[in-house]
């Protein structure tokens, strides 16, 4: 599949934005100005972006606790995201959601989710809407290897097949759920392999390679749009950091992480793959732009004001 230069630049920009965003949060987190649990997506960028480059605002995704990458890939505003993570009123969720609950329905982003496995049942709901109202859209869930074993996920997979919903289940296999190895927690050691048992096709792709993800997602999404039903993609990937910021990080040695950063960095891999097709200057410019953007987002987020205490009581109901 051949992408135009603009498409390539767009994809790279999204990946770089995610990387900048996460690296910066990693630093900011140590200053103590960000509270709560932060789960970074660094190292997994090619999955979110490889998938979401195939989507438009009328397609809905659900995400996980590790949601920043999905949000950015789906087009959420970076300033508003940063403000949200700083708990400010300008935040995308007005400071009420925080890192684990960023959402933007106008962009088709149905929410990060603090509940492992929480996304797939919601994604099939978005798919049901698309199917019933014939919007042409699809539903799509991102779920981790850990979340792949959750009952919520399996129920959603079966339902999707029964109702032939336009929905894709993306499994981001980064090898671990918290500190538990995927090969331990997934009985079959094969996430994609479960799909057949549910009556749907699956593909397993190298999640560090934007192009591999993009193509598999493209196929699955087109299939869904054509009314041919749900499918599964397992993307193997790696997270550069520990499960959450501040965790003991014992499950991998320093060498393992160094190796990953060196050889499994989706951004490096992307740059290698587009050599000759996109100039270094253009990519470097994106790097700079992303840095400036995130810099500015942090600066503004810091300066932004907190929600008014009165906002504690609003937005619980539409009316009550």
């Amino acid at each position: 599949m051949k992408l135009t230069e603009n498409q390539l630049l767009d994809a790279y920009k999204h990946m770089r934005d995610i990387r900048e965003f996460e690296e910066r949060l990693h630093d900011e987190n140590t200053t103590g100005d960000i509270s709560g649990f932060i789960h970074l997506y660094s190292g997994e960028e090619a999955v979110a972006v490889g998938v979401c480059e195939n989507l438009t605002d009328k397609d809905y995704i659900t995400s996980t606790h590790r949601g920043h990458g999905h949000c950015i890939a789906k087009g959420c505003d970076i300033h508003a995201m940063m403000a949200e993570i700083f708990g400010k009123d300008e935040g995308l969720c007005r400071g009420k959601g925080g890192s684990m609950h960023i959402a933007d329905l106008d962009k088709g982003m149905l929410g990060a989710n603090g509940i492992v496995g929480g996304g797939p049942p919601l994604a099939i709901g978005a798919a049901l809407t698309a199917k019933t109202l014939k919007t042409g859209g699809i539903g799509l869930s991102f779920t981790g290897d850990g979340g792949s074993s959750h009952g919520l996920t399996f129920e959603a997979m079966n339902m999707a097949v029964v109702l032939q919903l336009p929905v894709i289940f993306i499994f981001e296999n980064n090898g671990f759920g918290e500190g538990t190895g995927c090969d331990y927690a997934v009985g079959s050691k094969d996430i994609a392999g479960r799909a057949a048992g549910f009556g749907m096709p699956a593909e397993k792709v190298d999640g560090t390679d934007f192009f591999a993800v993009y193509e598999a997602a493209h196929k699955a999404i087109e299939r869904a749009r054509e009314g041919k039903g749900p499918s599964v993609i397992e993307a193997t990937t790696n997270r550069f950091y520990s499960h959450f910021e501040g965790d003991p990080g014992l499950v991998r040695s320093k060498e393992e992480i160094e190796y990953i950063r060196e050889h499994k960095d989706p951004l490096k891999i992307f740059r290698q793959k587009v050599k000759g097709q996109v100039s270094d200057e253009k990519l470097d410019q994106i790097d700079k732009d992303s840095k400036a953007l995130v810099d500015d987002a942090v600066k503004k987020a810091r300066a932004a004001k907190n929600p008014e205490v009165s906002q504690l009581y609003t937005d619980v109901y539409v009316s009550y």
Partner: protein
Amino acid sequence: MSKKSYRNAIKEAIEFEMRRDPTVVVIGEDVRGGHGAKNTEENKLEGFGGVLGVTKGLWTEFGSERVIDTPITESAIIGMTAGAAATGLRPIADLMFMDFYGVCYDMLYNQAAKFRYMFGGKAKAPMVVRGMIGAGFSAAAQHSQSPYHIFASTPGLKVVVPSSPYDAKGLLTQSIRDDDPVVFCEHKLLYDITGEVPDDDYTIPFGVANYTRQGTDVTIIALSLMVHRANEVADKLANEGISVEVVDPRTISPLDEEGILESVASTGRVVIVDESAARCGFAHDVAALIAQKGFYSLKAPIELVTPPHTPVPFSNVLEQAWLPSAERIEIAVRKVLEV
């Protein structure tokens, strides 16, 4: 206006809204019944129409696209309902027995109920979860519970517990049109009661209590099946010249605090009858409200008539003793009057 059963009143509300609004769909196990079965498919029959026949007829009118039979996977049902509600449908999920909330509550309480708040007011989830509550059917410990207090304790949910066919239709219509997630609790012993129900559509606003009996000596607060028992006691005691007011909040979230406090202010004596729980239940919620905000009206201790802190037993003899009875209500009323 004509006499209709509680069961039919519920069905009429759904049917009317489905005709009116193409985004209304029904989702659940055997809401039609018969998918994938030769006899029902060949003869276009509804195998169940809801496990106790409440939604019978809907599939025949609206088809499989809008009357959606599902596998037995409640988290997927409620989650799909929530996801659909957030993206443009007005789905009505049938949980069958509310007792099943234990296998799917996350999708309701952590997801649908919290979307709007977590997302800073930028989402809504207009959905209804219907389900049966109540003991008295010999359905034993896992099919007889009334966990509406748990729903009411959850911010973001609205909770409706109707006691009459009229209320059932009006409140369900409101529930379907409402922009927030609503849990609609149907007492299985009420399906066959009848009452006057308009043929046309109408809504009853949430948070407005109904005084099913007016009185001056004592206030009974009751929901659902218990309203009927309270009325029975009120009627009986009226013969003795005891004037009992019966307040049916109808919706418990929102709760008509004023309506309750007003009645308490006028009688000064309160009995709360409630099937939900012996601990941390709806009765306790109302008692706390009154002890805080209606304290100076009180002439006697607040009496609570609830089931004991036990699961619902199977044996009919035990189950009848478990359910708050007219006798127990009467004793409680006499007790608060003695003071």
